[in-house]
């Protein structure tokens, strides 16, 4: 696979590293090494310790025990600056950009070109343009403010920043979870180039295809422990990898179950509004799992935000469950029986300083009131424990602050928030972003259960395999317009992609 054969001596060695947080041993005596010129996948369930390991490399997390060797020398990094100086660049799982600065400034943050402290605007622009070209984002202007970019583009900026570090070791933490199809392709090219240049590339992902397509070696973690390393992908099967990750066999992740559909529950007629370039009409039936596919920025989220009362439509009608009319606020929609689980976990989903249980019960706690007056923390806790079990949420307890959970586990809590609502139509925007295979299986099952009960589910997903595998019908959007609605049987990945790509 690799164009340049990997060197014999590992450039990066992690020796017996342990990292402890209050209530959690995130890494437990981990040994691991990676060679220059290889792409090394790190895999494992949510909360297995992948991100923690990367943060040890970048000096963000301190080790309780153990050591790092880079190029044969022992290091303990006190902070991010030191790690950067030693040639380690990380693309973190959560975006770390400064929203009001320009793209160029974000790309070169921490190493702005300067003469005696004065920023060299020309060089800044040139370097930014160069790297944007390389990222395949040539149409992003370097002076654009980062907050005006889509999440995918922001993720690419994040990657560009790491590339500009010219680092010897470069680590990606679930980079593709918010990238579009083209962006993912571009990323794959970049990763390949990095490998060919003889760098150490660490690659964290939950997507099997990527591992088999891009990586030269894979290490699996479970519960903070190193489980196994495959130095070559030859002879390794997906099933084997999955069972090493989750400790059990999963035959078909998607496990689609067919069912009868009922009456129309949602009917959208010629809806117009921000983000849409043409009026949109579609129907969703009870018992149906309806998917929206499209490239990032195709307008799927915007469409469902208009439906769910997050933003107000400029025209068109919405009929839901016997009532006609738009919702003026998400609250109104939820009370009527539509809930939307947002796509951007960090900015739209979690309350970072609040506990898992407060995050989970924020909306549904109205069902747990005592005498209809004050809340019932006991029943809220029961509900939380219930979902901790159902979704295998890895947390020291229901009262742990959510910001200390791993990314995937935070996502599960947000999902549980909506799963515990009493709703008729459930809209999920990129629900499985960053979620491990085992848990995805559980989530799909919960969706099917909802549909079986006669409710309806709308899934927005950029994961082609996922939409085509779990949905009964799929609406494909492109550039703000609904292009076509495809039945499950006709929904081959090629067909969907063909519809979604600009003509």
């Amino acid at each position, binding site marked *: 696979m690799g164009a340049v054969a990997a060197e014999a001596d590992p450039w990066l060695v992690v020796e017996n590293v342990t990292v402890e947080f209050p*209530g959690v041993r995130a890494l437990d005596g981990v040994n691991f090494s990676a060679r220059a010129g290889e792409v090394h996948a790190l895999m494992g369930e949510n909360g297995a310790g992948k991100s923690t390991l990367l943060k040890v490399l970048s000096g963000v997390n301190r080790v309780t025990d153990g050591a790092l060797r880079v190029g044969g020398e022992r290091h303990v990094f006190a902070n991010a600056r030191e790690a950067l100086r030693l040639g380690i660049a990380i693309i973190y799982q959560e975006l770390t950009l400064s929203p009001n600065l320009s793209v160029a400034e974000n790309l070169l943050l921490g190493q702005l070109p300067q003469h005696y402290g004065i920023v060299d605007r020309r060089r800044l622009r040139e370097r930014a343009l160069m790297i944007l070209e390389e990222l395949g984002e040539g149409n992003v202007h370097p002076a654009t403010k980062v907050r005006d970019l889509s999440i995918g583009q922001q993720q690419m900026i994040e990657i560009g920043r790491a590339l500009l570090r010219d680092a010897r070791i470069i680590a990606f933490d679930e980079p593709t979870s918010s990238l579009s199809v083209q962006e993912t392709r571009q990323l794959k090219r970049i990763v390949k180039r990095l490998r060919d240049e003889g760098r150490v590339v660490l690659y964290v992902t939950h997507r099997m295809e990527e591992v088999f397509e891009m990586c030269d070696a894979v290490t699996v973690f479970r519960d903070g422990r190193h489980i196994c390393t495959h130095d070559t992908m030859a002879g390794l099967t997906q099933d084997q990898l999955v069972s090493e990750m989750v400790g059990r066999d999963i035959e078909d992740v998607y496990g689609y179950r067919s069912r009868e559909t009922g009456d129309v529950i949602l009917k959208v007629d010629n809806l117009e509004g921000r983000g849409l370039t043409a009026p949109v009409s579609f129907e969703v039936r009870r018992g149906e799992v309806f998917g929206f596919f499209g490239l990032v920025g195709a307008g799927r989220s915007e469409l469902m935000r208009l439906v769910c009362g997050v933003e107000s439509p400029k025209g068109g009608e919405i009929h839901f469950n016997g009532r006609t009319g738009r919702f003026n606020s998400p609250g109104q929609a939820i009370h009527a029986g539509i809930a939307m689980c947002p796509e951007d976990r960090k900015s739209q989903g979690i309350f970072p300083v609040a506990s898992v249980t407060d995050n989970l019960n924020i909306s549904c706690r109205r069902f747990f009131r005592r005498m209809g007056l004050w809340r019932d923390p006991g029943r809220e806790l029961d509900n939380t424990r219930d979902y901790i079990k159902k979704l295998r949420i890895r947390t*020291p307890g229901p*009262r742990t602050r959510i910001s200390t959970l791993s990314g995937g586990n935070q996502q599960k809590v947000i999902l549980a928030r909506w799963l515990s609502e009493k709703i008729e139509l459930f809209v999920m925007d990129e629900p499985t972003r960053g979620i491990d295979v085992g848990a995805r299986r559980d989530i799909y099952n919960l969706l099917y259960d909802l549909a079986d009960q006669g409710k309806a589910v709308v899934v927005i997903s950029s994961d082609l395999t996922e939409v085509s595998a779990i949905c009964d019908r799929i609406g494909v959007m492109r550039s703000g317009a609904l292009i076509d609605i495809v039945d499950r049987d006709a929904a081959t990945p090629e067909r969907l992609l063909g519809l979604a790509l600009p003509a």
Partner: protein
Amino acid sequence: MSSDKSVHADAGSQPETVRPAGRQGLIKPLRTLLDTSGLIAIFIVLFIALAVAIPDFMTGRNMVGLLLSVTIIGTIATTMMMVLALGEVDLSVASIVAFAGVSAAVITSASGSVLIGALGGIAAGALVGVFNGFVVARFGINSLIATLAAMEFVRGLAYITSGGDAVMITVPGFFELGSASFLGLTLPVWTMIICFVIFGFVLNLTAFGRNVLATGGNPEAAALAGVNVRRLKIIVFGLQGLVAGIAGVLLTSRMGLGDPNTSMGLELAVISACVLGGVALSGGVASITGVLVGVLIMGCVQNAMGLLNVPTFYQYLVRGAILLLAVLFDRWKQQKRQRA
């Protein structure tokens, strides 16, 4: 910043065991107590030290005096806690106290009725609060600047209402409001206690309180989760105005006059008490026990300085130093706990 993130969960061993950490089995108030124990510890040590060192400190009459001296700050701190939990701030409270007091005095004198006067004053306060909430929620104006404007404006109203001079109250019944006593404590003290109980309850045991915290933690997420953020803000600011209005009316009654110049700088004292009590200015974090302790620490220090005859200028140094040390110590305890 980073230190903000970490939590107070106990050290465990096996990550997969999702067992409730030891403390989490305890009842809620006790847990809160432990959570804010850094500050509570400071308070207890301070209190004991003062009681031992200053003979007059622990006397009953001094305790009553101490309580009385923190009533305004304490009462208003309970709603300021809600405002801060929401991620907002209210600088207009001192002006509201003055305006409500003056209004109550004027209305009482004009109408001859204590009830109408008191209600009028309180209503004036609540109105200002609702207006603040409206400006902040409806127009998305930063609350610091909105309430700074209100602070000027309302102080001006207080001067205009009173003509610049303190307004004397002619109806004798009015004085009883401030001095009516029950179980040895006067109405202002009871009001403070009741506010602590009510807002402690609201914050912890109602959906409203949790929504306030959620909104403070991430307003966008809260709106998407169905919280009516706008209404919430108007209500919280309205409550703040209402409570400041009550405090103003009681103050006027205790003083026997509505003084438009009263309580200058009160807003900063109230906010410090809250922040000292662990309320995050960035929103989303608040504890009623913390606020109580914050208020008491500030009151004890001030009281002790009076008893010790500390010269005025040095009182500034002591207040500044205590504030800083208390926060530093709290921070240090938190960090130690994190490492443990």
